[in-house]
């Protein structure tokens, strides 16, 4: 089973890219891949409790793990405003994921 890490750097709605990432995450999961979503830069705003955050919560229910970059979350003042189950991580974790833990990384 392939491990796929999807990294999202973009704010939802402002651009169309986050929607594509959700579509790919869903599809990869349907195909049996082990999928994680890592939010960094403006991408962390996607996990706020709102319409888009709900779509991420739906991914979580399908077994997608969701991570958010600590510095990105802090600068945007949303440390305690994310949907349940989002794991806040340091950049070292992201690097480990890319280099070691995941077979594939797609950075959006």
């Amino acid at each position, binding site marked *: 089973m392939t491990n796929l890490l999807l*990294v999202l*750097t973009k704010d939802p709605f402002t651009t169309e890219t986050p929607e594509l990432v959700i579509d790919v995450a869903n599809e990869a999961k349907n195909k049996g891949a082990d999928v994680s979503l890592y939010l*960094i*830069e*403006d991408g962390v705003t996607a996990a706020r409790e709102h319409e888009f955050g709900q779509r991420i919560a739906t991914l979580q229910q399908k077994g997608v793990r969701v991570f958010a970059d600590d*510095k990105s979350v802090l600068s945007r003042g949303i440390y305690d405003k994310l949907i349940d189950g989002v794991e806040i991580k340091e*950049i*070292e974790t*992201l*690097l*480990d994921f*890319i*280099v*070691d833990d995941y077979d594939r*990384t797609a*950075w*959006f």
Partner: protein
Amino acid sequence: MTEGKQLTIISIRGPYGDEAPFTLLRLAHAAREKGITVNFFNYLDSTVIGNKDQVPKEYPSVEQLFADVLKKGLKKPKTDAIACIKCTDSRGVTKTQTEGVVIGGLYDLAEWIAESDKTILLG
């Protein structure tokens, strides 16, 4: 386990206008601590990352931080950087790259991709 592995990081965004160059630096610092070899390929607008004499008043200096990463990368783990010549020529920054940046091209990148364990592009 990560130690001794090789990662290629392609950039396309310029400094200050976008956050990606700061993410590049954070990844570079983490890679050094973990013993990961990093190849930076600066493409399109990101060829301005290595432009000399950046003295931002309110931001950390991307150039100085990048130059520091490259200098430390002379010793293990290695850190190398290539700036795409067509992109530096377009922007007039070919002759003003900070120490440690080599002017090269997409063929160099293709080889880095082939030999690296992983490659990412910071969009």
